[in-house]
């Protein structure tokens, strides 16, 4: 079963013919791979394909085939420009063979016909794909098919500066016990606001710098929605959920943080370099980020003794409706519909090779991401990384993922616009929720379940 039935007969015939022809004929392939949201530290997202191509060529040579693969790579540092480039290139038939993107893009891109289902090209019951974590395969699936191969995993984390906690009265033992208190819901987001306010009042951190959340849109903000009891998907019907009560409480939390003076009303839209510099040097009391930020802070910002200076927890619960949580936002290797079926088959095999533990560990450790499969922990490079192993054990079991749904982007955009409007004080919380609801309902109708949770 394939998505491109028309080409089936031709492809089979082609495959048989090529098999019958002399094995000595060289086959030349050019495979392009683009990765979004990637910088120097995450370049193994594309380099892994180059390594895989090299291995493939060597294996082919041993079988007596001559295969020459040219891998063309491109890294995009942002997401906006990357997604624009991929969607527009796909419309003109020039998308790269392999796309490395967030799993949430699978829904819309499948509907648009940009992707080929990777399960039609590789065997998930064979090594190395059979050792990938089952939940990551789920995250790479949509509407009954596996569309992508997990490229990495991560978790989003809440961080506290130990020294400041100590200065406002926490003992070392209490600080070490903080992750457990967060997990149990005893320490909430509002407890955190109180603590960072104390830090500001004690002059440990500057005014309005006690709490430094993410400066821009990202999956992170859905964690706060979950902290206040929001669900993104209704488990029973599989439909998207817009929980007005959770959204109201979440928006209100950031407004309260502004009123308390621990974060500015004009915070969103700041600069990443400034943010990294501040949080990695104790200029903030509490903040949240991703497991991969560890690489940035320790390699670029000069943070030494991460574990001695920072304590990390799940995102605390906001109130009794919610729970402590984390969101994982795995990237996936996707096969575009560009090129021939043979190109796609080769691209899929390269991705499969790139998912071998040793190759994937290069990316995981260099960029502080987490393993995609069970066997990666056996790779010494990965096993030696304290952060990788700790984060895998302590955070990942509590993490869920964004829904793979073609329409989730609409809800996401509305959620963030409302957050911006209420945070900056342009709208009241109630008006911001109202506007977000209107935008979601007018776009999606009964594809979204609006819960008002007793509002």
């Amino acid at each position, binding site marked *: 079963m394939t998505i491109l039935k028309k080409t089936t007969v031709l492809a089979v015939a082609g495959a048989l013919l090529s098999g019958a022809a002399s094995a000595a004929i060289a086959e030349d392939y050019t495979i392009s791979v683009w990765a979004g949201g990637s910088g120097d530290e995450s370049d193994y997202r594309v380099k892994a394909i180059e390594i895989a191509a090299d291995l493939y060529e060597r294996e082919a040579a041993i079988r007596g085939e001559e295969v020459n693969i040219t891998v063309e790579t491109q890294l995009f540092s942002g997401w*906006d420009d990357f997604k624009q480039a991929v969607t527009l290139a796909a419309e003109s038939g020039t998308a790269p063979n392999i796309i490395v993107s967030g799993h949430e893009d699978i829904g819309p891109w499948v509907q648009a016909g940009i992707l080929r289902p990777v399960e039609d090209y590789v065997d998930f019951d064979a090594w190395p794909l059979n050792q990938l974590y089952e939940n990551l395969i789920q995250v790479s699936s949509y*509407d009954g098919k596996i569309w992508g191969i997990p490229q990495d995993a991560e978790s989003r984390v809440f961080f506290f500066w130990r020294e400041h906690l100590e200065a406002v009265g926490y003992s070392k033992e209490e600080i070490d016990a903080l992750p457990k208190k967060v997990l149990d819901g005893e320490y909430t987001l509002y407890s955190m606001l109180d603590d960072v306010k104390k830090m500001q009042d004690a002059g440990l951190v500057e005014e309005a710098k006690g709490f430094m959340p993410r400066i821009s849109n990202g999956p992170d903000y859905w964690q706060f929605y979950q902290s206040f009891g929001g669900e993104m998907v209704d488990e029973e019907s*599989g439909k998207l959920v817009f929980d007005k009560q959770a959204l109201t409480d979440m928006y209100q939390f950031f407004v309260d943080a502004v009123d308390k003076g621990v974060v500015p009303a004009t915070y969103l839209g700041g600069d990443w370099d400034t943010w990294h510099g501040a949080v990695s040097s104790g200029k903030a009391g509490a903040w949240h980020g991703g497991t991969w930020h560890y690489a940035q802070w320790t390699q670029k910002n000069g943070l030494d003794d991460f574990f001695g200076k920072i304590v990390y927890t799940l995102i605390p619960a906001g109130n009794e409706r919610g729970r402590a949580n984390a969101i994982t936002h795995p990237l996936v290797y996707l096969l575009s519909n560009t090129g021939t079926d043979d190109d796609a088959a080769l691209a899929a095999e390269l991705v499969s090779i790139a998912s071998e533990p040793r190759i994937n560990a290069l990316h995981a450790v260099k960029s502080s991401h987490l393993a995609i499969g069970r066997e990666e922990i056996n790779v010494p490079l990965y096993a030696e990384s304290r952060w990788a192993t700790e984060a895998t054990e302590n955070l990942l079991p509590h993490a869920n993922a964004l829904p793979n749904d073609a329409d989730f982007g609409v809800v996401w955009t509305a959620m963030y616009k409302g957050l911006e409007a209420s945070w900056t004080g342009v709208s009241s919380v109630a008006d911001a929720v109202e506007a977000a609801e209107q935008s979601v309902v007018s776009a999606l109708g009964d594809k979204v379940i609006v819960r008002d949770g007793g509002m």
Partner: protein
Amino acid sequence: MRSHTSKLGLLLVSPAIILLAIFFLTPALLTGVFSFTNMSSSTGISGGAWVITPNLLRELSDDGISPATIEALRDESYSVDEGSLAAARAAGVAAEFADEIASKLSGQRFASDSEFMSALKTLRTRPRRVRDLKLAMEPFTRSVLNIRFETEAAARLAIEQVVPDIDAGELERIVERSYTGWKWTSENYSKLFSSPETLRIVFNTVFYVAMTLAFNVLVGLFLAITTFYLPRRTGGFFSLIWLLPRITPVVLYAIMWKWFTWDDGFVAALAGQLGLPSFNYMKGSVPSAWTIVILVNGFIGASFGMILFSGALRAIPVQQLWASEVDGATRWQQVRHIILPQLRWPILFVTSYQTLSLLTSYQEIWLTTNGGPGNTTAVWALEAFRTALFNYSGSLQYGLGAAMALVLVAVGMVLSIIYLRLFRFDELVSKPKIEF
């Protein structure tokens, strides 16, 4: 003679007409067409296909399609029988492999893809490449699930093969709902008119255009007049400096503003020295962000005004100024009674031209505040761009963005007509009253 002239005229303007058609009319027309669709990154632009997916089946089941039909459409089983073996051979599956399937698996039925795959993997003659194995499996199933049918007829036929006795009404509904592409709709406009966000963005846009325009014209005029009174070389030097914002590449210009206003930048340092709040003036407060947005755009526009006004000033007969000086006029009286009246047309031109270009400009805002802090400095053109082509979640709503862009085209055209009337453009281009 007259007809020759008009033909020549037509010939001369034809390049302009062609360029206008290609670069203005066609895009505007396409924007109009797009705006009446729900085109997005999930529907694609070039057209959709017909796909039956498990999610769709669940929705159809909720909508009352009979359980038998849903069950048949959900079936993903593989059967090895004479028919499917013949189909496999016809599709080019290697004879040896087909023979082995026939001898070992004939008469068997497999409930899923993975079950059949596991069975095939036990065969000795199976192809080495996974892809070839998957392709060889296809003729053994009649499942329509997750197959992308490029035409409606193909989808209809496939459904009818799987559910031969399907009710005609059901078939219609299934085919209609399975379409993945865009549809015609006027909802983009109703959404724009009903959204509370719209009013805020309109207000932002009016504020931005009015303030920047005022800056452009007034500073442009001030610069032109002051440099006019300076010695020619000195005046030329200052004019050149004021041209820098215009000739600097926009990305570089934006980066320089960022450095200038950054947390530890010049403005913050200076403010700190003066005892004023020291922070990121570009993004740290709404009033300062607006000030920066207006200045960033204002300096570019001011140099444009300055050039035009300077040119127009040079055209004023200098004898008029000499005469006024003889009469004892002050500089201000010269400006008020001689210069400004004669700059009427250039001022009107700069005002109207800049209004239209500011309405559609977003790149400087995008590269500096990016509509922030929050979304407080977002203007209509920036919102249209982000809705249609550039946002974090990658949910590009081409249709809605096109509707927003078309509103700008309409506003621009209405304003052009108003300006032309208000400034009596016909007088400017009318034939001279005295024939030379």
